[in-house]
């Protein structure tokens, strides 16, 4: 099918199989390899991207369903502050989970701000529950997420 969508602000038109995973479109067809594949089954969140502002697992989203949508991957704009917080807390080891963690943290931090909610540890845990890390033990990741949500622009 002819797929039209916006990726990181750029309008694209591609010819793809409708059931091709958004993850494969992004990584293989468009060579944006920041988005990672962990489990390929929706469990780990390594493949998290934003579709129309909502975090989804790109391994579960068929290309047909992003037709006309705005997709943002870790290569897109707007992740700088969250990335800096992750750097400062040393919140990555192997790094496979990191892009997904940053994507989810950004969405969560923006939601806290929008709703005027004080970001808390429990809340951060819930938001990041679908992002698994095999290396760090989560302490540094949760600290980085809280830093990111508490910082005011």
């Amino acid at each position, binding site marked *: 099918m002819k797929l039209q969508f916006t990726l990181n602000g750029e309008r694209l038109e591609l010819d793809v199989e409708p059931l091709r995973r958004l993850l494969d479109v992004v990584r293989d067809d468009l060579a944006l390899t920041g988005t990672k594949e962990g489990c390929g089954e929706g469990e780990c969140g390594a493949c998290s991207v934003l579709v129309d502002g909502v975090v*989804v697992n790109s391994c*579960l989203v068929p290309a047909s369903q992003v037709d006309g949508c705005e997709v943002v991957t870790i290569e897109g704009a707007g992740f700088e502050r969250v990335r800096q917080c992750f750097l400062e807390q040393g919140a990555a080891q192997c790094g496979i989970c990191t892009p997904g963690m940053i994507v989810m943290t950004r969405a969560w931090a923006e939601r806290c701000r929008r709703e005027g909610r004080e970001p808390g540890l429990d809340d951060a845990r819930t938001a990041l529950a679908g992002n698994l890390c095999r290396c760090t033990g989560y302490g540094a990741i949760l600290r980085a997420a809280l830093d990111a949500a508490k910082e005011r622009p």
Partner: protein
Amino acid sequence: MTPEVTVARSLDEALAALARDGAAAHVLAGGTDLMVELRTGRTRPERVVDVWKVGELRGVREENEGLRLGALSTCAELLRDSRVASHAPLLVAACREVGAEQIQARATLGGNLGTASPAADLNPALVALGARVRLRSRRGAREVAVDEFLCGYRKTLRERDELIESVLVPTRPAHERQLWRKVGTRRAQSISKLTVAVALAFEGACVSAVRAAAGSVGPRTLRLATLERELVGRPLSPALCRSAAAACARADITPIDDVRSTALYRRHAFARVLATLLAEPDGVPACPPS
């Protein structure tokens, strides 16, 4: 083999694609079940009808008989809807515990019904609420109680040309408590070891009507008939909560050993969880104690 895919833009297009002769088409909604099935090869459909962009299947509407929820309602949408919150807190509590945020953004009500897994979390809530599913095909529409619709292990009464269009949650009685509890290995992103959903209506101190259902403790979402019988017409004393829960755990469920738990644990935990839940004064707890 790559399946032939129809990306439907309207209800008519979707129904036409489902009505075609040849191999039965698989419906694709949020894809959180089907995309995994396709990737692992557990399901190899010849045809797929993607209904994600079918507007007629979206949205929540108030009707005379109750609240109508479009089949494409996602957990995230149901969690945000104030009408669902006041009408069916039980369903909201169940949605909150499906997967994690990324899954909630795509997992739909219709998909939970369509997969008909015994471990599905929304289905016990729908059964306890006495919900009815509306099926539509080119031949017309029909409504079936969710309890009957889920007729076996991953089996439903859906005919091959039918689409799950919506679910009706009937208007609630004046004095009702809705109860929900899921037990899993962790608070989020875990498939249930067991779930219980109960809707209790009261007249004065006495229980006047009950509907109850459970997940992951039998081959399908189970209606808890013994529990319902034990509670009706009586005041909900602590002793009754315990004895009815015990009787229910003996008679209503048929748990097995599997990768997530054992039959022994499930039966034991089920009785305890149910007794505690029934004694809960305010209905749906926001979150299970951790």
